[in-house]
């Protein structure tokens, strides 16, 4: 079996200490990262291999931690803009999370029906959650109608963080924000729930790409922002194997923790067990030996 490819691209200076994004550096990260991931020359060609012009693309972000620790519009809007280059109209691209309140708090201007990519929470009037719980293994949840009604292809654009319960929160756990009852899945380090939710057909069949925002990584005491343990990694991580890209993210978190003199997540009793569960479910590959990690810098 071939290895799963994960690409980490670092852009020095992509984010200032004050949080300002350098657009030109960011654009180069997208071009390089998506190109390396797909073996294409750049982002446009890369996206053509992953999406069709007829797709409606959902970009699921994680805005729980406010402006200090959410992928900002300056990062996600340029990514959303790439889809117009492959024939997907802006109105068919939606940046979303669970609530408008959290999106606004993270600096997003909501856009339910205006020009440009849509930006909305599941709580937008007329959206909501599916009426009946979707039952799959240990999961029984209403799923956001953004995902089930408005999207044919999903990108998990997740901020990479330490997580007090799951160990890390990355691309797979980002879909906890796509259901109405994530609080019901915190037992046992969120395992097997993270993997089983991802395995649920409404998620699994739509997911195409993970982009982990590792510009600043909260490597301890996540998911909220704690300045002492927020490490500027200046990187984005790309992968189509959802397990491999999360595993790579986890290893980056461990590396940053080590640099700060922190114990490993396993030593703290909270390794991301969901990765092994996800591998057992056939969702991807978690072992370091099974992942080909390409690291580059722009």
């Amino acid at each position, binding site marked *: 079996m071939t290895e799963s490819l994960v690409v980490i691209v670092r852009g020095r200076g992509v984010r200032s200490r004050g949080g300002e994004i350098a657009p030109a550096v960011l654009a180069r990260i997208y071009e390089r990262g998506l190109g390396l991931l797909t073996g294409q020359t750049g982002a446009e060609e890369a996206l053509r291999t992953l999406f069709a012009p007829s797709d409606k693309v959902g970009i699921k972000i994680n805005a*729980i*931690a*406010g402006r200090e620790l959410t992928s900002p519009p300056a990062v996600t809007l340029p990514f959303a803009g790439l889809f117009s280059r492959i024939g997907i109209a802006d109105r068919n691209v939606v940046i979303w999370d669970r*609530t*408008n*309140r959290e999106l606004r708090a993270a600096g997003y201007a909501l856009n339910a029906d205006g020009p440009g990519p849509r930006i909305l*929470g*599941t*709580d*937008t*009037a*007329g*959206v*909501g*959650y*599916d*009426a*009946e*719980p979707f*039952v799959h293994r240990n999961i*029984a949840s*209403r799923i956001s*109608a953004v995902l089930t009604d408005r999207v044919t292809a999903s990108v998990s654009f997740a901020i990479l963080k330490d*997580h*007090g*319960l799951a160990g890390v929160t990355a691309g797979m756990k980002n879909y906890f924000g796509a259901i*109405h*009852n994530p*609080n*019901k899945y*915190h*037992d046992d380090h969120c395992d097997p729930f993270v993997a089983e939710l991802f395995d649920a057909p409404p998620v699994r069949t739509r997911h195409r790409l993970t982009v982990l925002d590792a510009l600043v990584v909260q490597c301890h*005491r*996540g*998911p*909220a922002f*704690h300045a002492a343990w927020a490490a500027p990694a200046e990187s984005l991580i790309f992968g189509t194997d959802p397990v491999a890209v999360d595993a790579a993210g986890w290893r980056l978190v461990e590396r940053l923790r080590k640099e700060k003199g922190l114990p490993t997540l396993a030593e703290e009793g909270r390794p991301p067990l969901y990765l092994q569960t996800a591998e057992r479910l056939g969702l991807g590959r978690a072992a370091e030996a099974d992942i080909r990690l390409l690291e580059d810098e722009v």
Partner: protein
Amino acid sequence: MDRRDFIRTAAGTGAVLAARPGAFVRDLYAFQETANLSHVEARYYIKLPDREIECQLCPRKCRLGDKERGYCGVRENDGGTYYTLVYGKACARNIDPVEKKPFFHVLPGTAALSIASAGCNVNCKFCQNWEISQVRAEQVTAYDFPPRDVAAAAEANRCPSIAYTYSEPTVFYEYMFDTAVEARRRNIRSLVVTGGLINPEPLEALTKVVDAIKIDLKAFTQAFYKDYVRGDLAPVLEAIKLVARQKIWLEIVYLVIPTLNDEPEEVRKMARWILKEVGPGVPLHFTRFTPMYLIKNLPPTPLSTLRSLRKIALDEGLQYVYTGNIPGDEGENTWCPTCRTLLIRRNGFAVEENAIKGGACPSCRNPVPGIWA
């Protein structure tokens, strides 16, 4: 709020609860944008370093980082302080017969002003009110209904009691507690309908301000609690014992689900345990299951099962054992355990005849335990 206004809004709430999910969810979620959440500091939690907290309210003891919410979905860590999001925020308010709770030995034939917030600390696969219990606080329409107004509304509507019910009142503990205090000032009783997963300290404090607690004993095996409740049996048994030691009224309900918790020997063990730990006078209700939520593949409980389980509990020595959700069944009635006089004849939630005089059987004068006036 006057009586007319209350009945109008209560009727509206009833309509929401009764609506088909398809219409219900989308409509309700349109309200999220203006979510009506409280920001009142919770009781029973401890602060930990780095803005973490540990909730001490229920046996789950959720340990949460900043911005995280408890299993209940209605209590949130914000900056290292734990808040209840549902204080004074009722998502359901109705006037119900007290028999609906069910309380059969508390003020029979009277109405209970019944309130709930969103949220629950378990996730029963057979939940009858999952559309409010298994959601987060902002996912239902919540009405401002602070404790003082609840007590006033009960008085205005001639309800001698307030019931904390429908979802799990443990998760809106502060709201329930303060409402009970307000109610007592007006001589209105407080009735708690709970699954019993609450820690001893808050439970004991609660028993000082409420008058009766009904505990759902959902099975008598840990395996059932693990697989179908996502909770533990032992704390529920401890809660029953604790309430039984207090000077308040206790009733126990056992929802009988075909093939899952209807083993006669299991029920016999439970009856013996109740007899030993609580005594023969506690009412025990065997209620009928209706397919719902995540268990739709099982039939409603056969009447014969309910009747045979009731007989087992009676044979074991419990004196007030009832069937529920079978309108007109003989098992709904209260009989004097000494002389077999019919004391209360019920039909569904209606009390058709109540012969109890001064809390005793009119024939043999044997006292009947309960709250009768």
